[in-house]
């Protein structure tokens, strides 16, 4: 594998390549095809991966701090990856696995996360405005103060999730599982709560406290 050709931008077609633990930080890798590649432990910090193909890639434990990941990450494995400050606006993360990933200061605005696995992940204050999270697994996730206005959480798994002070104005929570979730002072104005399972959830300080 010629790393210099990748770094210089000559080599853009790398589907299924093995780049385990390689250093690809601070590079412009716009539109590069890494589909299905082995990117375990790879260092992409501060790299620009806009419109890159990372679908089905294995990015387990990868370093993605500050990377521009407005890319195709469908079905990617991002377990234990460090995505601190990464830009995931509008990214395709359908079915991606983000368990135990570091997601501080990540922006997921307008991202597609249906069926993604975000179990027990720390997403405090994360930006999910307008994101599509249908059927996503957010069981036990920490979403304290997260901005989820106009997001689509239909059928999402949110049991035991912490949504304290989260902004869910205009969100679609139809059929979502919120059993045992903490919604203390969450904003639920104009949210769709049809068929939501809210048994054992804390609803104090919300607009629906007295209706449920």
């Amino acid at each position: 594998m010629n790393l210099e050709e990748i770094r210089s931008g000559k080599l853009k077609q790398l589907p299924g390549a093995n780049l385990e633990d390689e250093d690809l930080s601070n590079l412009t890798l716009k539109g590069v095809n890494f589909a299905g590649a082995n990117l375990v432990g790879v260092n992409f910090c501060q790299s620009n991966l806009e419109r890159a193909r990372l679908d089905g890639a294995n990015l387990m434990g990868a370093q993605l701090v500050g990377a521009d990941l407005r890319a195709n990450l469908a079905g990617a494995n991002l377990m234990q990856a460090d995505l601190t400050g990464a830009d995931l606006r509008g990214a395709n993360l359908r079915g991606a696995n983000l368990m135990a990933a570091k997601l501080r200061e990540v922006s997921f605005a307008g991202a597609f996360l249906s069926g993604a696995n975000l179990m027990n992940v720390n997403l405090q204050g994360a930006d999910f405005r307008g994101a599509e999270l249908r059927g996503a697994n957010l069981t036990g996730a920490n979403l304290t103060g997260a901005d989820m206005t106009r997001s689509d959480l239909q059928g999402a798994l949110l049991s035991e999730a912490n949504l304290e002070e989260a902004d869910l104005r205009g969100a679609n929570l139809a059929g979502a599982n919120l059993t045992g979730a903490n919604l203390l002072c969450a904003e639920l104005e104009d949210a769709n709560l049809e068929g939501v399972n809210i048994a054992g959830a804390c609803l104090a300080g919300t607009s629906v406290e007295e209706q449920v």
Partner: protein
Amino acid sequence: MLTGSIVHQLEAAHRNGKRPIRFGVYYKNTLVSLCHALEDCILTSSSSPILIAAFQQGKWYLQEAERYAELANKARQVVIMAAADTGWQDHPTSQMANVDLVSLDPTDPVAQEWHLMILSPTYTAMVLCQELSPAAYGSAGYPQDDLERKFYGLWTFEPDLVKETVELAIAQIGKYNPELQQTLTAQVQALIAEASSSPQDDLGEIVCRVVDYLQANEHDLERGEEDTSESSHPQALERNLVSNEIQAYLRMAQLMDMADATNPMAAAEVVALAETIGQLLDLPAWQIKRLRLAGLLHRLEPWHGVDRVLAGAEQAPSCPLVPEVQVLRRMPQLRAVAQILTHQTEYWDGSGQPAGLSGELIPLESRILGLAADFQQRLAHHRSTGTQENPAICAAQALAECQAQAGERWDPKLVDTLALLAIGVQQGLSLPVTPAKVTGAIWLLDFSTESAGKTGSSSETSITYG
């Protein structure tokens, strides 16, 4: 919310109104500092308040009784509500002529509430909270540390809301002491009459004190002071403090909007405009976030007055320090935002204030914000002066006025971007104008240390258009 509690009564009164009450979560740790700050403002205020406090139990009042003697010396009336505890009547503060104790029935929902209401002709503030029931802690369990007990409610400086709540409290007091109810009612009436002719205390100073007290608490947590060392969740406590520091500024900005009858949505609209411009320029997510926070705060009095303060200055050699601008710099997380706000009044041709910066030496976010705010103000002006039946005409007029100053006051390329946006709006593009959620506003501050360090100097923020 407990039915019949003051928090519940206030919420119910506004539930279907224009501005429903929004609640936030507060640790006891935060409430102690917040209340001390708001109470201590009484001591420096130019007028004498009515102070009504609810302490849940007499023992919590006794912890504060010495301080309350000082406050009672300044206040015209102090009322303490709590479930009686032995000896609480005997404390010297309780014996003062203008201090009245109301012994709450332990089954009264107000006995589960923590309130501080300050109503004076020149200064209004309140903290209105209810304790979370032990069952509501869920799987996390009831906290071991007293300072980690959770409350939910609101705090505010809004005069109308404070007055309304004081009236609810007086009605509650009437159930125990009708005579005191009458006295208080008469005192409130007299006070309201005084208020109309009194200049208000400086809210900027009050906000500074709130931020200072919360920050002092934060430093104690960091050092693991004795009374906080048992906390098993110092990060959660710290986060709650920082969240309330930013809330203090946001509440001040909110009051600015509310006081402007012709343009009450300025903050929300400027945020939507600035963010959309940022997106059209393909700015990174962290920079757009910072722009949003700057937009929410863009109208704060200190910056509003920047032109005026500097009008007398003959030369601006480098960037003079406008004392008011320093308010925001008290929070390290807000220094970058303060810089954006400081330079939003610069002119593209270098003839602006406060530093006379020109062209791309003006931080990009300041250029965007200045233009978005000016456009929004012009738009609001046209809407309020008769042509509001056609929003497209208002937008076209406002845009034409901004375009007339392109190259002189505004960055011409940004004016082009604004024009694109205005065309989009005319064709039906709707900007996501959502009033800020003040509680939980902590998300706004989550910049990584690295990106927060990018203070918007020209070299780092100059971007290529295309």
